[in-house]
């Protein structure tokens, strides 16, 4: 036991003495939470629009000023031909264009009917759809006011409620994902690389001839990263509660327990990688391809899984982060108990045991 503790100490020295690495490991979750929480939103604000106003009358001016006043749009400039719309899109000066036909106001007055054309830069299809929707809503509002708020007969009144996240904050979606990402990075990649580094430098040989059991050496390597990761979970949770104002609705102990389970999953994967590789660059490459990319792509936090083609949806089931992400979302944001997530927990546990088993099976006392 004493030997084991001194080995753990040695590993801590490794980490603590490398200041740069240490600060990045602790600072990474901080920066990620801030970027994800504040900078990344799909909500569109202040999209530039250009106007091709063939009418230039009271009605079109009124409508333009109303659009400019909304927080979704800001007026860029008046243009005078369709060609200029294309130019504006190409230079990224505008995302959307509004075209009024000549005699817009008089059509409205005399025919009770007028046309407006919306042209969106659909290079980004989602932004285009959303902007078209917003713009149509503003125009419909304007139209409603023209009809003096007459109550239409036979009206269905839709009452709409946003569950869990009434302010529609992006953070609710990102916090569980960031947690998975940071843990994966610290546990899998860093653990794999530290062990392989000792192999590469030859110090592994030195340790293997010491009286300490080889297995203990490896576990001693993992312990500091386990503690570091627990610290990271706590800092992420603190930040999300106090800075992003995403409350923890469920049981904190359950959440931490699941977190530790996921840390162990990642550590086992890191150990497995370190067993089968012998250069740092290869270890990094495998962690990137095998763990990090799938976590970002297939866990459901960046990209919606239900939109993916079937093969990817099937593959997503073997990505541990997908299950962890579901668990954190359920416990932290929906406030559900173990009753609702026992299946996900069991799957994660099974994966961990499988990875640990493979690691032990591949563990070699002798180096080649």
């Amino acid at each position, binding site marked *: 036991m004493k030997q084991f503790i001194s080995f753990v100490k040695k590993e801590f020295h490794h980490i603590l003495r*490398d200041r*740069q*690495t240490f600060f*990045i490991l602790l600072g990474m979750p901080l920066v990620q939470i801030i970027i*994800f929480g504040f900078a*990344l939103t*799909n*909500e569109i*604000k*202040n999209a530039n629009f250009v106007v091709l106003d063939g009418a230039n009358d009271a009605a079109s001016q009124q409508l333009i000023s109303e659009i400019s006043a909304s927080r979704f749009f800001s007026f860029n400039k008046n243009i005078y031909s369709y060609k200029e*719309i294309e130019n504006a899109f*190409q*230079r990224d000066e505008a995302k959307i264009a509004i075209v009024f036909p000549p005699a817009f106001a008089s059509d*409205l007055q005399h025919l*009770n*009917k*007028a*046309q407006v054309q*919306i*042209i*969106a830069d*659909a*290079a*980004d*299809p*989602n932004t285009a759809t*959303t902007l078209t929707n917003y713009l*149509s809503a503003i125009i419909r509002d*304007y*139209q409603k006011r*023209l*009809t003096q708020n*007459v109550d239409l*007969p*036979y009206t*269905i*009144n*839709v*009452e*709409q*409620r*946003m569950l*869990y996240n009434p302010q529609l904050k992006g953070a*609710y979606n990102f916090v569980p994902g960031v947690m998975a990402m940071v843990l994966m990075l610290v546990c899998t990649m860093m653990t794999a690389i530290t062990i392989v*580094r000792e192999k590469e430098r030859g110090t592994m040989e030195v340790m293997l001839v010491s009286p300490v059991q080889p297995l203990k050496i490896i576990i001693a390597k993992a312990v500091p990263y386990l503690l570091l990761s627990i610290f990271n979970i706590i800092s992420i949770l603190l930040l999300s509660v106090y800075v992003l104002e995403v409350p923890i609705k469920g049981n904190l102990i359950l959440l931490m327990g699941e977190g530790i389970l996921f840390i162990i999953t990642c550590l086992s994967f890191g150990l497995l990688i370190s067993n089968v590789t012998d250069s*740092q*660059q*290869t270890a*990094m*490459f495998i962690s990137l*391809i095998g763990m990090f*990319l799938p976590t970002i*792509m297939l866990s459901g936090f*960046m*990209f919606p899984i*239900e*939109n*993916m083609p079937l093969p*990817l949806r099937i593959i997503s089931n073997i990505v541990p982060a997908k299950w962890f992400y*579901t668990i954190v979302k359920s416990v932290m944001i929906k406030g559900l108990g173990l009753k609702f997530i026992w299946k996900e927990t069991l799957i994660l546990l099974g994966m961990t045991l499988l990875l640990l088993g493979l690691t032990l099976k591949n563990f070699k006392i002798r180096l080649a």
Partner: protein
Amino acid sequence: MRMLKFLLQKEFRQVFRNPSVLRLIFVMPVIQLLILPWAADYEVKNIRLAIVDNDHSEYSRQFISKVTASGYFQLDQYANSYKTALQEIEKDKADIIVQIPVHFEKDLVKESKAPLFLAVNAINGVKATLGAAYLQAIVQDFNNDVREEWIQLPKFSPQTTIEITSSNWFNPLMEYKYFMVPGILVLLVTMVGSFLAALNIVKEKEIGTIEQINVTPVKKYHFILGKLIPFWVLGLLILTIGLLIAFVTYGIKPAGSFLTIYVFAGVYLLAVLGLGLLVSTYCNTQQQAMLISFFLMMIFILLGGLYTPIESMPVWAQWITKFNPVTYFIRVMREVVLKGSGLVDILPSIGIIFLFGLVLNSWAVINYRKRG
């Protein structure tokens, strides 16, 4: 010049003899380009509904079939009560609950108005907003159908209407892949450029071979150029592979010219490689170099406008994006590939990237010391 030639020979040999680097160069782009565009589909569709129909009337049936026929929605289940429907949301099996109250049809016809309840799982705010908006539009539509059934609208309508027609330029099929693939190409070129360059030099430090070079008469800038050129070539090679894959698998052919893309990529790679070199001069171990490059890459890529529009970022983040080379390349790629912008249109971006390259590389050269 001769010195440089030998250094280049050495570097190319090192790269081509290392299988893991070669794999990184050839496997990464293929995997990423084959999988990411499929995964990165933000289009909101397949919204799953749990429907609580307490009315069981002709209208409620008509409404439900209208919703499910729209193509955006999938019926998860008919729930007996709001509570069972909520459980579907808790289990992540449904996204929206539609509750049709008792006497929906009767109220609509007799009282001239009827309520309808929607409850949306809003953890993913974007999906919730768009899904609810689609559903509202269908309700409106259904509402108009009902009105038409009961009121004979006069031909010359007394109600003022503004007809809205909308069209989508550059990507009329609204294909999300056209938008993502150019961005992913940028990601690949950037990762290879900065990671490989940084790791390569630090590896020499870690193994100690850099000492051997330091005692030779090789000049600082010779050494740096010798490191830069091979990765510059590799970066362009990856871009070529990526463009090929984009064409073969997704049929994406740049609307602009290849020359524009390559000119920009050439300048851009200088900047990214400069960044890699700079990182390597500050690190002593590959682990450090990897972690720092990773950290920087993460910030650059997340704030590069690949996944979320830059206009919606707060002002401080928009300032950061101005100093982010990835932003410029992603924008240029999309402009050239989708909109066919030419060299003249992207000239300002080239200028800025060139400046980045100049600053980063000179910083790296100054910071590289020939002492251990």
